[in-house]
């Protein structure tokens, strides 16, 4: 009945839970509410701990039937609950606060006893543990699809609860309903008209969207929605018609696309609806929570069914039709990316900006590490060089003021003396070139080294650059610890077209497009380079240097180019970073940045561009969103690195095995194996 694994797994889980409890995590997260007035983040954490243990232990006895699962699940959760109870007893018996300092301010007992006395609190905790175990056991015995739906929708609902304040005002319920309604109508019409060509379907979608737009616009103008809707209170009926026509068209276009687009659209729909609900209720109360949970559950239930149908529709189309649809899909993705900031709000957009910067760097580092197999641990150096180049060139500095220290120039004279000051557009190519040159200069002495020697030297180089920018000896150029301030933001000046069109790309919204464009360019260049002769040479070097040399590849040249291109991308990232922050400080360029970039390309899947993107979202975006967890973010980051690597050593999206690399392999001469 009781599996021996239950005790082992249970005590592992209990050990982790106790360790976390001793960090005072329950006290710290107790103030943060996920569901207003009811569920705090520490309760969520407790539930995760208890159910996690229950799921772990119950899954070990899966083949023995539901009773065994329930029993072992309860036992597993109880072990964790008992462990936590034990900690509370110890906490009350002896003073732990000298060793476990955080318990001083965040003791465990008040939180885990739920305001009861110690004894009744412990009983309550144990009862809850048993309950959690039973739930876990029961969860495991229902079909796996249902289980996934439940767990995923719970997780997404919790994250909406966490970000409540930041996303609440993104869109209103009427907006969400209108958008989803039009999208759905376009979709359904397209499915009904599957036999027609995709262009006709698209036209139908556009038309229906336009009609709805007119109707809604009329109602809105008549005051039908009050002030509740942002989209519908937009000026002029025409813009509403255009917007809704596009949405309807999108719905019809999605109808026959591949799985990913479908899933993505469904996610967007889900988030729109749940934010709408949240906005309507104005806080994450029970009603909002339940509704959002239902929205997500429905979504996850629909997802496999709809996508299965959609892919079959996609497959059955004739070839040219399919191509048209693929183009549509790409266009949709691009369109969504383009209008995303409108819906995401400033905070989420700024996170996207940061993720984007890391994607640019990741694509660059991927060329050195993923394509060529050069382990670079000091990538931040090139990032810093890009930022500092733009910083010095776009502000009054020794370089731009003809060798005179700006501090020695009277404020009024600065414009006349510092004539060398450039705009961002003039400076960024120089930043890229400087970074590339630095790549070459560093590359020449160290590329003879292999593997880990290269790693430590590049790590050292990263530190050298940071320390030089920091040091007093170079203060006149780099500003020392004070960094470079007041860097102008990039300006798009189209006043010759329209006097109002002068755009300062300073806000999170505007810089988003600059970064997006940077990503498009770097991804494009990296992708194309991958399939050139040079790209093949890189992959050959990665596979086996000696063989590559035997095949006549100029190792030094190929490696240097790989280094230089990667460095150039980092320089571009740095250039954008500098002008985005409008100030540069040496402390932004620590080794942690290098580690972050390296980790994200490896977690994403070495050598794969989609992998870089996913990795950046996970390693950069997630910690930003979880700023709530404050101190635990870095801990979670570290644990995540270990866990992902243990679970998927090849990364989350490994690159497809290219025919090119197969060619390299088959071209490997026999002596290579000997």
């Amino acid at each position, binding site marked *: 009945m009781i599996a021996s694994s239950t005790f082992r797994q249970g005590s592992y889980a209990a050990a982790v839970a106790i360790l976390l409890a001793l960090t005072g995590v329950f006290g710290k997260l107790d103030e943060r509410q996920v569901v207003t007035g009811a569920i705090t983040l520490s309760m969520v954490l407790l539930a995760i701990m208890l159910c996690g243990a229950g799921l772990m232990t119950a899954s070990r006895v899966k083949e023995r039937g539901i009773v065994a699962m329930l029993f072992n699940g309860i036992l597993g959760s109880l072990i964790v609950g008992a462990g936590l109870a034990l900690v509370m007893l110890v906490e009350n018996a002896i003073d732990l606060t000298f060793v476990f300092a955080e318990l001083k301010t965040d003791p465990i007992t008040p939180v885990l006893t739920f305001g009861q006395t110690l004894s009744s609190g412990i009983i309550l905790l144990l009862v809850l543990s048993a309950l959690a175990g039973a739930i876990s056991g029961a969860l495991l015995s229902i079909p796996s699809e249902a289980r996934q739906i439940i767990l995923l929708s719970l997780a997404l609902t919790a994250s909406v609860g966490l970000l409540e304040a930041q996303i609440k005002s993104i869109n209103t319920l009427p907006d969400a309903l209108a958008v989803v309604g039009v999208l759905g109508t376009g979709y359904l019409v397209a499915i009904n008209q599957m036999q027609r060509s995709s262009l006709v379907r698209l036209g139908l979608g556009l038309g229906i969207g336009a009609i709805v737009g007119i109707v809604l616009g009329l109602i809105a103008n008549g005051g039908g929605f009050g002030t509740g809707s942002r989209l519908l209170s937009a000026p002029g009926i025409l813009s509403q018609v255009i917007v809704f026509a596009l949405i309807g068209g999108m719905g019809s276009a999605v109808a026959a696309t591949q799985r990913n687009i479908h899933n993505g659209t469904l996610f967007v729909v889900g988030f729109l609806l749940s934010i709408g609900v949240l906005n309507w209720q104005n806080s994450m109360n029970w009603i909002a929570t339940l509704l959002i949970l239902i929205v997500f559950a429905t979504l996850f239930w629909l997802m496999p069914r709809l996508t299965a149908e959609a892919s079959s529709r996609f497959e059955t189309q004739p070839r040219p039709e399919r191509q048209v649809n693929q183009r549509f899909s790409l266009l949709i993705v691009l369109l969504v990316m383009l209008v995303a*900031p409108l819906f995401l709000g400033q905070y989420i957009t700024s996170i996207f900006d940061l993720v984007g910067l890391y994607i640019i760097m990741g694509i660059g580092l991927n060329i050195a590490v993923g394509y060529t197999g050069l382990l670079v641990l000091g990538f931040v150096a090139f990032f810093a060089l890009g930022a500092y180049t733009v910083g010095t060139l776009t502000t009054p500095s020794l370089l731009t003021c003809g060798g005179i220290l700006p501090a020695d120039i009277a404020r009024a004279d600065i414009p006349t003396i510092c004539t060398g000051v450039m705009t961002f557009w003039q400076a960024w190519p120089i930043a890229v070139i400087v970074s590339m040159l630095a790549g070459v200069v560093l590359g020449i002495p160290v590329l003879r080294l292999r593997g880990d020697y290269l790693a430590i030297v590049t790590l050292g180089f990263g530190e050298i650059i940071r320390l030089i920018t920091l040091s007093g000896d170079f203060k006149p150029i780099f500003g020392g610890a004070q960094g470079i*301030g007041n860097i102008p933001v990039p300006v798009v000046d189209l006043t010759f077209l329209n006097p109002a069109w002068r755009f300062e790309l300073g806000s999170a919204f505007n810089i988003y497009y600059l970064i997006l464009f940077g990503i*498009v360019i770097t991804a494009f260049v990296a992708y194309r380079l991958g399939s050139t002769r040079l790209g093949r040479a890189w992959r050959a070097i990665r596979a086996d240097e000696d063989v590559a040399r035997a095949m006549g590849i100029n190792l030094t040249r190929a490696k240097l180019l790989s280094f230089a291109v990667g460095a150039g991308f980092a320089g571009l990232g740095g250039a954008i970073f500098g002008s985005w*922050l409008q*100030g540069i*400080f040496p*402390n*932004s360029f620590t080794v942690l940045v290098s580690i972050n970039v390296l980790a994200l390309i490896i977690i994403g899947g070495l050598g794969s561009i989609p992998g870089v993107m996913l990795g950046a979202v996970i390693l950069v975006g997630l910690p930003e969103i979880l700023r709530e967890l404050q*101190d635990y973010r870095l801990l979670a980051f570290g644990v995540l690195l270990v866990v992902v690597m243990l679970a998927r050593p090849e990364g989350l999206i490994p690159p497809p095995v290219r025919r090119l690399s197969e060619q390299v392999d088959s071209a490997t001469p026999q002596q290579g194996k000997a």
Partner: protein
Amino acid sequence: MVRRLLVVFVLLLIAALGVTAYAQDAAPSVTVTADGQVVIGLAAALSGEGLAPFGEDIQRGAELALEDRPTVTVGGIEFPVSLDPQDDQCSAEGGQAIANRFVSDASVVAIVGPMCSSACRAAAPILDEAGYSSVSPSCTAPDLSTSEFSSFNRAVVSDAFQGRVAAQFIFDVLGLTSIATIHDGSAYGEGLVNVVTASFEALGGSVVAADAVNVGDTDFRGLLEDIVAAEPELIYFGGFAAEGARLVQQLKNDVDGGEIVFMGADGIKGGEFPGLAGADAEGVYTSSSIPSDANKEAVDALLARYTEKYGIEPTGPFQVNSYDATNMILDAIEAVGVVTDGTLTVDRAALSEYLRSIEGFEGLTGTLNCDGTGECSAADIGIDIYAADGSLSTVAVGSPGDDNSIVVTASEG
């Protein structure tokens, strides 16, 4: 291919234009319903190496302020106040992220923080654009108040003033003419040392050696040998407790520097430094803005409450500044808030204007007068000396005199 890229570029441009046209103006005011809360954001380094304890001080200072004043009363109605603390990691990126986060939360009325000057500088343009106001308890970089940010205010004395007082104290009160400087490579430490160097040389003293250390390094003995060889009478240190304590210890125990006076600023003031340096802390000078005599008791009471509530001594001095900053914001809300039908409306522009023109605010750090550039600190800088048991006693007070001059008076006894 190039054509496709061009298409993408044009699309991007169009979208950017669209977004700019569509992007909503920041709400010019905050509304709090009768059952709602007034949310004050707080940005400080709450994680990371070395500086997190200072950030916690700041957070706790604000918490204590709210404990004393859990509600704001406007038009006879009390609205509860809550704090939204976020981690700014003491970095530019962190400051920027926090600023973006706060401005996309329409319920945040104003912000205590950020903690470090780099974060303040990165956050200010974003807060400016959104019309938010911030009061930093610890951003001391001199140029923050001269950069024409509309959102930036500070309830802490600028390094420019503190450094000048320190220089004058060394020259006039201690009567020393040759010093050496060391900073820790932080914007704070370097900035402070720059001011001290300039002021000290202007007074006629000489800086015989200048060096810097890296945060996290432990062995400063070689550096100290060099400095001692230059025979300064005093070493001025710009930085925080960990490096300061190491420097003092190694100066006194490992190199022949026993006679050299060691002086730092508010970075090494508080409970942490004597804890780290042990007996070697004796005779070390620090400086920080100090309460007027009238407030001394209140400050001591606050520190006692801090210790009682959190079980540890405060690490540095900034919890007092944070306490003041919070109260300034609450005052401002009460002053400019308008209640209609039980709903509180705070106009952001009015709030900002009020904060910038505060006169005679009786804070724990002294009487705060805001000069319209965001400079709101109390005027006096106190210089203290550590005793063997780690306690502090004030030896001199620096206050602004006429004509941008500074008067440093040695305390009796």
